[in-house]
């Protein structure tokens, strides 16, 4: 699986120069410079120009640069032609409904990439009932696909269901996306929480996403990032547990055994994998020092 942290992916409107310039200061793991919903059809060309410049001249620090292009049946081709040569880290493709969509995008990207360019990754945004059904095929369509992202607003509209803060209407789709991503060994990113003023609601929704197995959450406002990171960061308790697991398994291996137990519970490979993932994350985030010991 792609090891890049994507706890938070922050949308920045592609037609707002101030936000594009400051997008790197909020500490999001990824910034999504948006050519799609945030930009009116008459302003697509201006936004493409702005984003191309931003990619070349703005320092986004540690944030991954992701461009949300327009859907394949509208301006995707022009977007890719203009943006890919400016070396974004990844393209977020909206309304993906099948493996062939990904293959089309891969061809367009290949045609636009410059010699010696680091291959542009793909994150597939699943936001239609059809896209959800095809989730696994989409995730497996090309090695460039590093994550499946779920868009709850359009999806609910597609279902003809009513979107609520509680989110029962998107529960199935969420679990399908998480499962398909895990099966294909790519990351899964949850739908944004759209009420920027409701911090408690954001916390509850992010806790649920984390519980379901999402690796991160898209965000529509910089104010949401701290809460999101707070949920996806491993807790001190989890880090302590992971350290104990690794200690126990090393000890067992030293004694010639591949299996051992911790507090009466057997430690097998999945447990070790989970512990290793937590420790890698903790290491990346500089959380190891402060953990309980």
């Amino acid at each position, binding site marked *: 699986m792609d090891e890049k942290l994507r706890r938070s992916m922050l949308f920045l409107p592609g037609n707002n120069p101030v*936000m594009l*310039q*400051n997008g*790197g*200061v*909020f500490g999001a793991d990824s910034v999504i410079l948006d050519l799609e919903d945030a930009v009116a059809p008459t302003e697509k060309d201006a936004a493409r120009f702005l984003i191309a410049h931003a990619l070349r001249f*703005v*320092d986004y620090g540690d944030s991954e640069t992701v461009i949300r292009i327009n859907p394949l049946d509208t301006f995707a081709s022009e977007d890719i032609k203009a943006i890919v040569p400016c070396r974004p880290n990844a393209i977020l493709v909206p309304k993906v409904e099948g493996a062939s969509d990904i293959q089309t995008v891969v061809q367009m990207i290949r045609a636009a990439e410059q010699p010696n360019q680091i291959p542009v990754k793909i994150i597939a945004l699943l936001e239609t009932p059809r896209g959800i059904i095809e989730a696994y095929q989409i995730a497996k369509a090309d090695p460039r696909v590093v994550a499946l992202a779920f868009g709850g607003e359009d999806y609910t509209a597609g279902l003809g269901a009513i979107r609520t803060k509680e989110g029962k209407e998107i529960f199935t789709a969420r679990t399908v996306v998480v499962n398909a991503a895990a099966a294909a060994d790519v990351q899964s990113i949850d739908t944004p929480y759209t009420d920027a003023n409701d911090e408690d609601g954001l916390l509850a929704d992010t806790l649920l996403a984390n519980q379901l197995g999402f690796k991160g959450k898209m965000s529509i*406002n*910089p*104010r949401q990032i*701290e809460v999101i990171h707070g949920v996806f960061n491993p807790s001190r308790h989890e880090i302590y547990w992971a350290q104990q697991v690794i200690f126990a398994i090393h000890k067992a291996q030293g004694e010639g055994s591949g299996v051992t137990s911790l507090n009466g519970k057997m430690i097998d490979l999945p447990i070790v994998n989970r512990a290793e993932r937590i420790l890698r994350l903790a290491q990346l985030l*500089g959380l190891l020092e402060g953990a309980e010991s």
Partner: protein
Amino acid sequence: MKNALGREIPEKIQGIAGVQVFAGAFATPPSMNRQAPKVKSVRPGESKMVASLAEVFAQIPVTDGMTLSFHHHFRNGDGVVNMVLATAAQLGLKNLKVALSSVFPVHAPLIKHAENGVVTALDTNYMSGPVALAVSQGLFETPVLMRTHGGRSRAIECGQLKIDVAFIAAPAADEYGNSNGVQGPAACGSLGYAFPDAQYANHVVVVTDYIVEYPLSPISIPQTKVDYVVKVACVGDPKGIASGTTLITKEPVGLKIAENAAKVIQAAGLIKNGFSFQTGAGGASLATAAFVRKMMEKNNITGSFALGGITGYMVDMLEKGLFKKLLDVQGFDLEAMQSMATNPNHLEIGADFYASPFNAGCAVNKLDAVILGATEMDIDFNVNVVTGSDGVIMGGSGGHADAAAGAKVTIIVANLLRGRLPIIVDKVLTITTPGETIDVLVTERGIAVNPRRMDLKAKLVAAGLPVKEIGELKELAERIAGIPKQIKMGKKIVAVVEYRDGTIIDVVRQVEGLSSCEA
């Protein structure tokens, strides 16, 4: 001669007796006695009520060359300064000095009075709007003396700013001169900036549009200081006095800065019971208060006091038990006014109590943390809040240098890029607040700690805050915005910036080459 910050200060400056240059924030201790106020008497049965301002001018009498003082509690809604100066002009007075604690756009008629020779000197702590622009263009022959709020109080108490007549605009008064700021149509809250004037002026005139039955209560300025009471039709426009509920910014970069500023306070170990705090009324400063509040609530902290200009937000924190007291030298909104009138834990304090460096201890000395702004800062952490990027005066210290000197941790919050310009420069155009009193700069792209505070730097680094060298931040800004060309100023000194201890920290020179559209 050069002062301790390397600024060239002329040995003689018109209007200042015995120029002393800045030597360090606490390097010039006083050795003098306080000014003794004039001894007064009023006999039983004498009335203090006077029919008009012209009548007061005649009774005092106000003569050419006198110093008339005013407070700025009515901010941009003030009607009294213009009324008094119009009277002076009608009576043909000349060469008056105006000691007005802050000058706002509403005071534009002052320009005409200066051009006509009615007013020839200005002493203030802050100015913005047409008067500030005209001063920058050379309105006065004598440089304007720009002080701090604490410094103005000090100057009055030490006899360096001698006030002949204090005209105190009072939202409510009785016929014997007791006054307050919490009643009447022009209620403004605290009258703290007028306290030293009332105490030391030779003549004290209360100007009000709201007379209540004797004795008024509560009393902010007592009858024992007041010689005359004049009732006028209207002292001020409430719309310009109170800003209404002050809102916390939603602008993401401002919020990011505010959040980091709050984290600095927390990392410094100050969020604990007894915490004391000052912040401005601007959106980002207020947002810092909101983040600090969250930390206090989360950790069940009861603070000691909040100080300075008080807003409804601080009132709410008092009422929710997050602070035990508010020390209020100036109220910014209706909530602050109402609270001061009704809540015994909301205390009105004078400018001297707030910030004067030369008394036996002012309130800023008891501050744990203060959040302040800056228009420019240099790599030595010196701050400019007087002149803008075009060299024109657009502010002043107010309490900036006072609170910076007093607080345990002084934090400047500023966007690294202000419009198209980097906030950090090699040398600020005008020094208002010396770098030795500034501890931390918080921007959206990193936090810089004054090298004098290695202890604090270690704490911020340990807390995982994005600490950078100030030079690094400067380069970062310049990579985005380039290095601005230094602006060229004229020769004439239009204002003198006095540090709170009375020494001269910098001078402001005339602006050159302003096109008419900029003017």
